[in-house]
């Protein structure tokens, strides 16, 4: 057993963050015998600790460090200090996530070619193709136990799904099922089957849902090669005179600072913290922040075109019962510009408990229009709309000029405004979502605005050419060969699918690359 490691041990690979990207990468590297120190800002919460109660669970798991917002998105008005709903804990946002695991479509890796030059959109083709990604998708689906892959049966449909399905059938949609979910429909990998508890967003107390917190992390630790340091909040990444990264400075639970030396550093703090960390690590050699010769660090922030539709029926649905997101209509995810926008979107079942429904149904609204909708809660069905949003340079994570966090570092400001394509797509999605429920007999439908971002992407994007982005096709910084980005911030574009399967696939692929570079003596 080599772990734990000394802070001056410069043979270790340091991974920052233990979510979908970092947790997977840390385990994959450890499985290959590579020494890894994973630094995680949050603490360790396991299924026994998870709370079946929305606000207390949010308090337990959410990333609540100060952040600011700007731009014309409604989140900036309604939740000005909470641009994103993400987790600070071992396991990252895979503790909260709902498990929807979809591959990108072939054209979604080359949207600049497919969609052409869209004014205001900073579109770029990925430097990888679906064909190159397929073997990694295979590995990720196997690892995560994704339903409808590897012979794993789909989850049974809950009431919320049945309403969606009834509407989809009536409307003539062809592809509606209970999803490809990284949730056990039968016992697998030492974890039990889903008990339809309905608190997927609050951490699965049954451990049926894949989360790095209790899959990748303990598997990596069991090799003896992975050390996870909890409550280790990385403040800056340091480099040597040759412009190679050499270590990181982090604060422990008590605010004491430590320096961990590193052979390579992999940043996986999710798409707000990762670019912030690179920007906060500016030095005289890299005055605009690490890996930022392109000026693209923090830019092209994407959050998916989102929105929800809730509908009230004459009789009870009890949508909160059962798997939160096991239901999908994929018919609208194709690229069909005749609809008035490029790209596509998915419709996925969604339910919020009564407390979150009050907060998110129509933030700021009051009076009978709102309260009568809440009165219909028991008879409500719900869906989430998730589609490709356009990368825009001005949608960016920047360092706030004045506001500082608990460590005295500038907080990130998240600037976001919809692209006209996003708005056209959302309007179409609202219309179709409402049509689905109308077809199922709804007496009232409610197009609900986007929540704080759960999907955060694109702020350290991959590009073939160094001038167009931050990292290459392996997530390796164009400017610094031993610095990697290992989370959703490397996405060149966002596609219409939920991001995590792709994040995990890229992390598995990146581990392979890092190992081969080490073997070749290049790292």
């Amino acid at each position, binding site marked *: 057993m080599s772990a734990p490691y000394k802070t001056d041990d410069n043979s270790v690979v340091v991974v920052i963050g233990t979510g979908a990207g970092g947790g997977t990468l840390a385990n994959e590297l450890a499985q290959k015998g590579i020494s890894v120190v994973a630094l995680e800002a949050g603490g360790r919460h396991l299924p026994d600790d998870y709370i079946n109660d929305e*606000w207390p669970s949010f308090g337990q798991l959410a990333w609540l460090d100060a952040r600011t917002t700007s731009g014309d998105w409604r989140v900036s008005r309604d939740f000005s200090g909470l641009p994103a709903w993400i987790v600070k804990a071992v396991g990252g946002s895979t503790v909260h996530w709902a498990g929807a695991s979809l591959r990108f479509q072939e054209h979604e890796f080359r949207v600049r070619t497919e969609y052409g030059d869209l004014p205001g959109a900073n579109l770029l083709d990925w430097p990888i193709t679906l064909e190159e990604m397929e073997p990694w998708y295979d590995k990720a689906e196997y690892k995560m136990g994704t339903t409808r892959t590897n012979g794993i049966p789909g989850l049974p449909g809950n009431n919320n799904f049945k309403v969606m399905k009834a509407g989809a059938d009536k409307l003539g949609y062809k592809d509606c099922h209970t999803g490809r979910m990284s949730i056990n429909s039968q016992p697998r990998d030492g974890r039990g089957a889903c008990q339809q508890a309905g608190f997927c967003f609050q951490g699965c107390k049954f451990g049926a849902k894949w989360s790095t917190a209790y899959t990748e992390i303990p598997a990596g630790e069991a090799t003896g090669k992975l050390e996870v340091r909890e409550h280790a909040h990385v403040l800056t990444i340091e480099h040597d005179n040759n412009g190679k990264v050499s270590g990181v400075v982090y604060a422990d639970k008590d605010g004491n600072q430590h320096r961990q030396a590193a052979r390579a550093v992999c940043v996986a703090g999710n798409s707000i913290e990762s670019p912030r960390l690179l920007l906060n690590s500016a030095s005289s050699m890299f005055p605009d922040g690490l890996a930022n010769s392109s000026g693209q660090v923090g830019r092209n922030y994407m959050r998916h075109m989102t929105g929800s539709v809730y509908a009230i029926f004459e009789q009870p649905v009890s949508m909160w*019962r059962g798997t939160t997101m096991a239901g999908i209509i994929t018919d609208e995810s194709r690229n069909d510009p005749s609809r008035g926008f490029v790209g596509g979107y998915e419709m996925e079942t969604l339910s919020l408990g009564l407390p979150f429904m009050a907060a998110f149904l129509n933030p700021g609204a009051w009076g009978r229009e709102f309260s009568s909708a809440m009165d219909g*809660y028991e008879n409500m069905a719900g869906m989430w709309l998730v589609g490709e949003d356009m990368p825009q340079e001005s949608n960016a994570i920047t360092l706030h000029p004045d506001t500082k966090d608990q460590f005295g570092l500038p907080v990130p400001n998240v600037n976001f405004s919809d692209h006209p394509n996003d708005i056209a797509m959302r309007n179409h999605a609202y219309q179709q979502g409402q049509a689905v429920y109308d077809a199922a007999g709804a007496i009232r439908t409610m197009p609900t605005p986007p929540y704080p971002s759960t999907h955060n992407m694109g702020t350290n994007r991959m590009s073939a050419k160094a001038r167009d982005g931050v990292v290459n096709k392996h997530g390796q910084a164009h400017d610094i060969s031993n610095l990697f980005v290992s989370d959703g911030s490397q996405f060149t574009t966002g596609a219409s699918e939920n991001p995590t399967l792709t994040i995990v696939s890229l992390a598995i692929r990146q581990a392979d690359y890092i190992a081969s570079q080490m073997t070749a003596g290049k790292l």
Partner: protein
Amino acid sequence: MSEYLDPRGLSRRELLKRGTALGATFIVGAGFLAHANDAWAVESKALSPETMAAIIQVARDTYPHDKLADKYYAIAVKGHDDKAAEDAAHKTLMEDGVATLNSMAVATGASSYLAMGWEIDRVALLKQIEDSPFFQAIRGGLVVSLYNQKEVWPIFGYEGESFSKGGYLERGFDDITWL
């Protein structure tokens, strides 16, 4: 809810005797507000009971649920009295906010906000002060303090925690029959 009953250890009869009627719903006395028909009373530490009564009505008018009794609104706004006890500025915000509403009510010919008979007329006043810090403090707080009361969940049909009962696998996750 017991802490909201008979705040000073007085019997309910005693409370009602010591108070005077405020509108049809409330009995107010020194430092307390009791419901005329429902068996609860709430202590007011910093805000006048008249102010508390008006705030409870503002809360109902903001998120009107005919199936929710007044006590849930009283519990939901109790935090403003607690906060006013510690923060003089909050006390002023609440007392002045209610005073403003009352004078707006008087301008319409009513004797006070509480004395206005129809919700639609009270809401018309709220609409005018919708962006004020007073109204936003009450509305914003209610989103959590009203809907996050576990006691109100069953009234909306929401079942809450399910882990201890083994989830819904055997308890109706797919029991819909009317489709």
